[in-house]
C-alpha cells in the first residue's frame, strides 16, 4: 500500500496568486503588487532555520522535481536505508508544515492590476492576467526581476481562463468565445521586449475553460464533455537569435465532438477510434469530464471516477481508451458532485474539494491538505516544478510537495 508524505511551505500574508518560474517564486498581493524570491535563497533560509534534511526535501519535492523524477535519485531511494534517511523528517508525521517569512521577498515596481484576477499565466517571460477587464499582459525580466514593466491590454472583455504553451495563447471568455493567438516574440535586444499586440482569432463561440492535451486543445463548455481542437504545429524559432527551433502551435483545425468517443471509452475496456464509431454507445448514467492532465481525462460515470486517454496524432484518427496508467489502484475520492475543480500535475491530478485537496496518481487517491483555498496553481509546463502545487488561502500562500512511499521495493 502506498503512503503519501507532504511538505508544505507556508508564506503568511494575504495574497492573490503565486507562480514558480525560472528559479524564482513570484507572489502577488491582493492589490496586485508583485514580489519575488530566488529559490536558492529560499532553500538557504530553510536550511538555516529547519536543517538540511528539510531543506533537501523542499528542494526535491517542490523546487527541483526534475531531480525527484531523475533515474539517479529514484535508484538511490530504492535502497531502504537511503530512503529512510531522505524521509527522516517524516518519522513522526506524514505532513510537515514550515514557514517562509514574507520579508525575504523583494518588491517589483511593475504596474499592478488592482482588480480581481481570474487566472494568471507566465510564459516566455510574459505575464498574462485573465480579468473581468480583459486579458492583460506584463513582462518579467528574468535577469533583473526588479525591473518594472507596464500592463497592456490584449483583449478588452472578461477572460476567465488562460492556457499558454507552445507559443500559443488560448483565452476562454465564456459567452464571448474561445480566442487564440500566437505569442509574438521579440528580440532580447528589443527595448520593450514584452508587449506586442497579438493577432487574435475566435475559434469557438463559447468557452468556460480551456486546457492543453499535448499540443491539442480541449474546450470546456456547459456540455459534459469538452470538444477537441487538433493543433497545427510548425517548427520555428522564437526570435532571430534563437539557437534552436521549437514546436509551435500556429492554428487549430475545427473542433471535434468527443461525446461518443468518451462515452464508449468510459463504458468499455477497449480502445475506440473515431472512424470506427457509428453512434454513441447506449449507457445508463451521464459521463462527465471533470478535467484533464495533458491527454489523461478525469471522467465521472455513475458516481465513480475513471481516467481515459485521448490521442490525436498528426495524420491519424482520434483514439480514446481507458487509461492503463490508472487501472492498478482505486482513484475514487469523494462524490464527484463535491469536486470543485481539477488541476494537472505530472502523472496525476490535484482535486479541489470544498474543504480539502486530494491527489490522484496511478498509485491511488490521497488526502493532500485540509482547508479551503482561494486558488490552486500547478506547473506542468515547467521543467523543475511539474509536481509542485501552489495554493492561496485566506491568510497565507503555500507551496506543497509530496512523496509517495511504496511498500514494494522493486
Amino acid at each position, binding site marked *: 500500500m502506498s503512503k503519501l508524505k507532504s511538505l508544505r511551505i507556508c508564506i503568511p500574508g*494575504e495574497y492573490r496568486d503565486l507562480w514558480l518560474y525560472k528559479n524564482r517564486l513570484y507572489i502577488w498581493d*491582493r*492589490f496586485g503588487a508583485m514580489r519575488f524570491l530566488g529559490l536558492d535563497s529560499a532553500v538557504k533560509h530553510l536550511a538555516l532555520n529547519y536543517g538540511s534534511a528539510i531543506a533537501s526535501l523542499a528542494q526535491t519535492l517542490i523546487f527541483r522535481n526534475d531531480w525527484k523524477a531523475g533515474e539517479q535519485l529514484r535508484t538511490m531511494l530504492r535502497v531502504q536505508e537511503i530512503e529512510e534517511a531522505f524521509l527522516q523528517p517524516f518519522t513522526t508525521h506524514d505532513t510537515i508544515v514550515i514557514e517562509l517569512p514574507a520579508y525575504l521577498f523583494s518588491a517589483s515596481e511593475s504596474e499592478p*492590476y*488592482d*482588480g*480581481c484576477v*481570474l*487566472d494568471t499565466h507566465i510564459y516566455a517571460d510574459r505575464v498574462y492576467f485573465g*480579468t*473581468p*477587464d*480583459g486579458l*492583460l499582459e506584463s513582462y518579467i525580466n528574468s535577469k533583473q526581476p526588479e525591473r518594472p514593466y507596464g500592463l497592456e*491590454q490584449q483583449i478588452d472583455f*472578461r477572460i*476567465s481562463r488562460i492556457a499558454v504553451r507552445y507559443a500559443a495563447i488560448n483565452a476562454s471568455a465564456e459567452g464571448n468565445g474561445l480566442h487564440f493567438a500566437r505569442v509574438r516574440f521579440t528580440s532580447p535586444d528589443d527595448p520593450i521586449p514584452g508587449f506586442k499586440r497579438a493577432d487574435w482569432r475566435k475559434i469557438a463561440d463559447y468557452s*468556460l*475553460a480551456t486546457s492543453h492535451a499535448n499540443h491539442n486543445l480541449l474546450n*470546456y463548455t*456547459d456540455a*459534459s464533455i469538452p470538444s477537441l481542437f487538433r493543433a497545427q504545429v510548425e517548427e520555428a524559432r522564437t526570435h532571430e537569435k534563437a539557437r534552436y527551433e521549437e514546436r509551435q502551435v500556429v492554428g487549430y483545425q475545427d473542433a471535434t465532438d468527443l461525446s461518443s468517443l468518451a462515452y464508449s471509452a468510459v463504458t468499455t475496456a477497449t480502445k475506440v477510434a473515431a472512424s470506427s464509431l457509428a453512434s454513441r454507445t447506449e449507457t445508463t448514467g451521464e459521463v*462527465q469530464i*471533470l478535467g484533464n492532465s495533458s491527454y489523461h481525462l478525469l471522467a465521472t460515470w455513475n458516481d465513480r471516477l475513471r481516467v481515459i486517454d485521448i490521442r490525436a496524432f498528426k495524420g491519424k484518427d482520434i483514439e480514446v481508451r481507458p487509461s492503463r496508467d490508472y487501472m492498478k489502484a482505486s482513484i475514487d475520492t469523494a462524490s464527484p*458532485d*463535491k469536486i*470543485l*475543480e481539477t488541476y494537472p500535475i505530472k502523472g496525476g491530478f490535484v482535486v*479541489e474539494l*470544498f474543504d480539502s485537496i486530494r491527489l490522484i496518481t496511478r498509485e491511488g487517491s490521497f488526502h493532500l491538505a485540509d482547508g*479551503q*483555498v*482561494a*486558488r490552486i496553481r500547478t506547473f506542468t509546463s515547467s521543467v523543475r516544478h511539474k509536481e509542485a502545487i501552489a495554493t*492561496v*488561502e*485566506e491568510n497565507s500562500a503555500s507551496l506543497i510537495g509530496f512523496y509517495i512511499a511504496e511498500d514494494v521495493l522493486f
Partner: protein
Amino acid sequence: MSWQARRLHVPLQLASVGLIDSLLVSLAGTGQIEHVKGRHKVVEKRCERIGTHPAGILFSSCAQTSYLSMDVHRGASSTKHPKSVWAIDRPDECHTFCTAEAGGWTDQLGHYWNVAREGESDFGTRGERLAFFSSPANVNDPWHGFPVGGRRGMKFRSPPPDDLVEKWYKESRITYVTYTRIITRRV
C-alpha cells in the same frame, strides 16, 4: 469602474473600509436589520407563512414582500425540465430571500441573489451555495427563488454578476476564499 480608471483611484479594499459601516447604518434605517454582529449584518428571521398557493406556500418576507416557496423546487418534480431543489426548509428559504432583500443584492435586471456563508449548509441538494430570486414580471405576483451554482458541470449553472460578488466581499458577507471561488466559477 474599469481597470484604467482604477489606476487613478485608491485601491478598492482601502476605499471600502469606511463604506461598510455607513452602509450598515443606512440599511439599519429600513428596520430590516435588527442588529450588527461584528462586521456582519444579521437579519432576524421574521418570515411569516400567510397561506397556500396552487404552486406552493406563500410567505410574507421581513419587508412584507410576498414570497412563494414553490413545490417544484422542493423535490423531484414532474415538470418537463428538472429543477434545482432546496436543501433548507421553507421558512429558511424565505429567510434567504429576506437577507438578499435587506442587503439589496440585486443584479442589473432587478433579480435578487444570495450566498451561503462559511459554516452555513448548502442551499441546494446538489451542493449549490448560491440562491437566485427571480423578479416577478407582474408587481402583484409573489417573488420566488431557487438554488443555483456557478461551477462548470453543475446542473443548474448560473453564476452571479462580478460586481455583486465583490459587494458581498466588501460587506464581509463572504471571505476572500469564497469570493475568489465564486468569481472563478468554482462554487
